[in-house]
């Protein structure tokens, strides 16, 4: 089978007929240097986002008693990541760019009912991928505050992917006409 669809290839496969380009030499713009077909759509964005277990346990601080001054106190509340392993105490979110253009990733947490969280970084820049390299960045996340008294959703993390203009500025939102 010979594919004649030259503009609809993703990951080396034609999205119309399923033909796979077996040539491994891919040049600039995602074109196969042997057959000249467009192996990757250079305008397409392809990003992988993975995350470790996102569950946390809340431990309310214990009541304490200061015997010398006869004052009741309380230890601080703590949040512990349930997936704690190898000494790591916060889950990791990994963003991998597989596009032929640089992308940005911005991270935000919306907590429910007073829950607060923090990222090790809130903004990532990932260079354009090449045939041999797919840039990846990681971010750690932890719950920093708030209390719960039952099993519940703590909120949601939003990873916003944007492109980078040729001038290096992030894509800007501008006014439309709603």
């Amino acid at each position, binding site marked *: 089978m010979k594919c004649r669809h030259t503009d609809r290839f*993703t*990951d080396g*496969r034609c*999205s119309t007929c*399923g033909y796979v380009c077996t040539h491994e030499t891919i040049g600039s713009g995602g074109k196969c240097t042997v057959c000249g077909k467009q192996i990757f*759509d250079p*305008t*397409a*964005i*392809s*990003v*992988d*986002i*993975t*995350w*470790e*277990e*996102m*569950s946390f346990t809340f431990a309310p601080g214990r009541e304490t008693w200061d015997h010398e001054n006869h004052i009741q106190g309380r230890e601080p509340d703590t949040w512990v990541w*349930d*997936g704690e392993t190898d000494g790591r105490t916060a*889950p990791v*979110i990994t963003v991998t760019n597989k596009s032929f253009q640089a992308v940005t990733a911005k991270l935000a947490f919306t907590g429910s009912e007073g829950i607060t969280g923090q990222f090790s970084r809130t903004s990532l820049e990932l260079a354009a991928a090449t045939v041999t390299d797919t840039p990846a960045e990681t971010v750690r996340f932890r719950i920093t505050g708030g209390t719960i008294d039952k099993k519940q*959703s*703590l*909120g*949601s*993390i*939003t*990873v*916003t*992917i*944007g*492109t980078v203009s040729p001038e290096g500025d992030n*894509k*800007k*939102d*501008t*006014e*439309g*006409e*709603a």
Partner: protein
Amino acid sequence: MNKTTEENKEQKRKLLIIILIIGIVVCLAVTMWALFFRNTKDPGLAPDYAPGQTEPNATPVEDDGSKLDVPEGGGGISIEYVSSVDIDLSDNKATFQYTHPAKSTQNIILQIVVKDTVIAQSGLITPGNRLTELTLLDGAAGKLSAGTYTDAQFKILSYDPQSGEKAMVDTVAQITVTVQE
């Protein structure tokens, strides 16, 4: 004298009956509207559990079947899209390129959001499917006018395929929406 009093009472009784009938008609009308005509769709809010109905317009894409390397208890999605979306108000549809590769470990719902308003929403999309078209939600076309919107996003809501529970991580992709009448 007595006759006049009787007539007044009769008039008051008739007035009361008329008011009661009007009240009953109003109540019935409100009930009918609430049951049959009120728009109960609220797609702007992400459901906590995935809907049972899969997206009928999603088409399968061939893949080698490999999955993202995700730690136990975690999740991962791969997103592939072209960042331009076209909307034709004459046929009330949005056309675009979005692929939910088989290597993703989550099911998704795809929303198209323009200026913080959800204008189109898919059903559940399982990994290994592509979507190129969505019908605009009721009333969405009336909020758009011909031109280009750069304050627009694909919002990708992730759901665990086993439990159907919403994942803690959602993804948003910035897009440009071009509307034509």
